[in-house]
């Protein structure tokens, strides 16, 4: 079984758990601010997501039935678990599966209510998962091919930055991040701004504190994704931070210039170009 975790590790885990939603919220706020500036307006303050969350928790806890709330809790707890497992440096595939579990719980919560918008949003979310999961697993495979280990902690021991050996995978990963953060052209299931089609999709029947829980889970997810982008240059985390900023700006530009496309387009696209790029990268790594 696992070795005893020493105090340093406990502290790292605790700090990550507490800091991750703050970082995620700041990234979301920055997202809205920069988007606003791109559109020529002032935009909300960067700490606006904090106000949103606090407001949500002061609302009346309205729901359709109790089961969907359980799924919201599971969604949040498993997203926190992903942070914990990453901080412990555990097996990457398991981290991926925990993350997938978290998303599935959100999907099941959306499907557990008798609401057509929710149902369609959940279906589309599953299709999103279908679109980006192969790429994530291929990234883990690439890491294994270079370090002979599946543990997250082995990534930090790699001599060269991951970006050098996995450039195509990085591009594919950016597409996957765009999907996960519900950015156009992939915001088919639920999105912060676009509600013409599905009226908020999966989260349509969540309100008040339960919506707050889902939003906090979304902050965790944002923090995790951007952390992984930063780790693509793990040898020098300052450059990694710069990489992260570049990726952030790139995703924002993508979001603001593209309009929403269809789910079938998303599936076809993700299973052709990014998947092909990832496989090419893997073959190159395998034959080295």
């Amino acid at each position, binding site marked *: 079984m696992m070795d005893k975790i020493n105090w340093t590790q406990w502290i790292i885990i605790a700090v990550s758990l507490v800091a991750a939603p703050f970082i995620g919220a700041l990234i979301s706020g920055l997202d809205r601010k920069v988007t606003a500036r791109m559109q020529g307006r002032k935009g*909300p303050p960067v700490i606006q997501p904090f106000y949103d969350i606090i*407001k949500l928790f002061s609302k009346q806890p309205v729901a359709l039935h109790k089961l969907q709330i359980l799924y919201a809790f599971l969604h949040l707890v498993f997203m926190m678990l992903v942070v914990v497992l990453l901080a412990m440096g555990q097996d990457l595939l398991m981290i991926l599966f925990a993350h997938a579990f978290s998303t599935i719980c959100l999907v099941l919560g959306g499907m557990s209510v008798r609401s057509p918008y929710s149902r369609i949003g959940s279906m589309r979310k599953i299709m999103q998962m279908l679109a980006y999961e192969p790429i994530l697993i291929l990234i883990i495979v690439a890491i294994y091919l270079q370090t002979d280990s599946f543990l997250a902690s082995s990534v930090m021991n790699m001599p060269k930055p991951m970006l050098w050996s996995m450039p195509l995978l990085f591009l594919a990963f950016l597409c996957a991040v765009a999907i996960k953060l519900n950015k156009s052209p992939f915001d088919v299931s639920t999105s912060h701004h676009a509600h013409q089609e599905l009226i*908020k999709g999966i989260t349509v029947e969540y309100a008040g504190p339960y919506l707050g829980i889902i939003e906090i889970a979304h902050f965790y997810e944002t923090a995790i994704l951007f952390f992984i982008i930063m780790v693509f240059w793990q040898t020098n985390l300052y450059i990694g931070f710069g990489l992260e900023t570049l990726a952030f700006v790139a995703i924002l530009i993508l979001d603001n210039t593209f309009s929403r496309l269809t789910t079938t387009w998303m599936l076809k696209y993700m299973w052709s170009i990014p998947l092909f790029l990832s496989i090419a990268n893997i073959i190159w790594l395998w034959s080295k």
Partner: protein
Amino acid sequence: MFNAVSKSPWVVHFNCNSCNGCDIEFLACLTPHYDVERFGILHIGNPKHADVLVVTGSVNNRNARVLQNVYNQIPDPKVVVAMGVCTSSGGVFAGCYNILGGVDIVIPVDVFVPGCPPRPEAMIDGIVKAVGILERKRKGEVFPTAPKPTHTFKPSEEQSAEKTVIKEEKTV
């Protein structure tokens, strides 16, 4: 919790039988020119996520039930902002065979914004006033329905002495 609800009022917009004039002006508030998002206001399409219900148009037999439904789905605390003269008296449609009256016969209204259509600045004023009421509602105060407008105000001249009085015909 400090008063976050006034920093992040999310708006759901419902059009009863408006001519769309008020709706267009309201959507203009979201454009970069007026930019209400800097106050944290988000135009949410889903009543369950909303704090402020912005209503335009007046009530007829068909949408009375729908308006009631949408209002009930908004969790507390909530405020209603009724935009335009149609919501208070029926406006240009007053006396029509299908109009039952203003919005206040179905739901309790907190702020009436007069005008046909009200200017975006007036709308923002109205929403800001409503958010203030929302904050006090969150603290537990109970508010009666706002009185209907009997005067027309130009926002920039609210403090000035000039007030134009327009007599409203009482309908229904």
